[in-house]
């Protein structure tokens, strides 16, 4: 066991949070094979805990039932209300959205309420996750693995989502129908020059990827300030990309209502733009967390997911 070390960080209100970090070995009896693993424990300074720390051995009993899904419970094991509140928000958003688009009475209200509900759930759920990982130290290697699997599944679902858009594009462009003049692009459609803004946006997005790799290595090397600078560069490049895409959408000669060309083009590039915006928000949060000292050499799953 490593001796407990004191870490001082600050919360957004400016109060200093004193934490004790210790690594201990934990026996994991959940599976048929009993095994031991090293876990890091972070404790907030507390009068009741402090005397236990002064001794040479620190014994902390942790109750983590491996049969119980971790993410539907709060750190302590209480059932979390956020999955059901998020589901209700999604239901209200979907029904409200359809009602709004069909000019039903109250559609806009239901849509707004649903979106507010979802945004609130996102805020409090991730707030809980951050508390569980930083202050309570519940994110053991097994929990980190679960988070990683979850995010990998999300990425795979995105790959399939975009695969469908490429499929639609090739289906429509490789054998254009008579209704659009039998040619691609359809007659009367002006196509954006790929060697102008798209060619500029490609290296911008690639540079953003390079900068996030720089941030990753800086975190691994323990260079905390450098990692913040790298994340700022990453986010700025992503914002420039979004700005150029917005400008191009504004100046584009066609719209999503212009034939199958407009439908496939704006659906695919629009969802890609949305994907970039979500990634930018995620990286902004990572940058703030890096600035606050939440991310360490060994523990930065949130950053890896954003990258």
């Amino acid at each position, binding site marked *: 066991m490593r001796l407990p070390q004191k870490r001082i960080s600050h919360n957004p209100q400016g109060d200093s949070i004193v934490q004790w970090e210790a690594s201990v070995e934990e026996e994991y009896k959940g599976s048929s094979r009993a095994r031991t693993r090293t876990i890091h424990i972070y404790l907030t300074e507390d009068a009741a805990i402090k005397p236990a720390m002064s001794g040479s051995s620190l014994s902390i009993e942790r109750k983590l039932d491996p049969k119980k899904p971790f993410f539907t419970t709060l750190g302590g094991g209480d059932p979390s209300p956020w999955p059901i509140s998020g589901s209700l928000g999604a239901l209200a958003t979907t029904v409200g959205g359809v009602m*709004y688009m069909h*000019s039903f009475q109250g559609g806009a209200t239901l849509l707004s309420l649903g979106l507010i509900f979802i945004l609130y759930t996102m805020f409090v759920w991730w707030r809980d996750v951050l508390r569980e990982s930083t202050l309570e130290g519940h994110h053991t290697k097994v929990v980190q693995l679960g988070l990683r699997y979850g995010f990998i599944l999300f990425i795979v679902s995105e790959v399939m989502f975009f695969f469908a858009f490429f499929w639609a594009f090739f289906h429509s462009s490789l054998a254009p129908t008579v209704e659009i003049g039998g040619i691609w692009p359809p007659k*009367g459609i002006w196509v954006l020059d790929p060697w102008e803004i798209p060619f500029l946006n490609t290296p911008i997005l690639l540079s953003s990827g390079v900068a996030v790799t720089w941030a990753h290595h800086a975190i691994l*090397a323990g260079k905390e300030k450098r990692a913040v600078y790298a994340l700022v*560069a990453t986010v700025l490049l992503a914002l420039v990309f979004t700005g150029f895409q917005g400008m191009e959408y*504004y100046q584009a000669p066609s719209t*999503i209502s*212009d034939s199958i060309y407009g439908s496939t083009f704006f659906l695919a590039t629009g969802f890609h733009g949305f994907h970039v915006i979500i990634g930018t928000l995620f990286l902004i949060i990572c940058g703030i967390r890096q600035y606050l000292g939440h991310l360490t050499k060994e523990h930065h799953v949130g950053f890896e997911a954003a990258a």
Partner: protein
Amino acid sequence: MAMAMVRSGLLRTALRGGSRTSSAPPKRGFASSGHHDDACKLLLRGLIEFISDLNQYETAKWEKISYLGIAACTVLAIYTLSKGHPHYDEPPAYPYLHIRNKEFPWGPDGLFEKKQH
């Protein structure tokens, strides 16, 4: 190359630890301490130092590539934007263009469209 460096580092450290044990066979006690542990510690320390050095090197390398990327993007942006943007003629009103089956809840124009009327 990185793997080769790890291997050579491991080999060197292992040999350093191993040479001491090979000269005189150690007495084996019940406690698992001794030369074997020393070698392991040395090996682990070498590995940690190596990974730390590697991360420092990679950080500096990717920082340089980032600056290069930003510089290249700036030059390309100045070139592309200085060309100005082309103007397109209004196409004939083909039935598959500017499709409107129903009024939008917010008015006659799409969200990302310029005013058509």
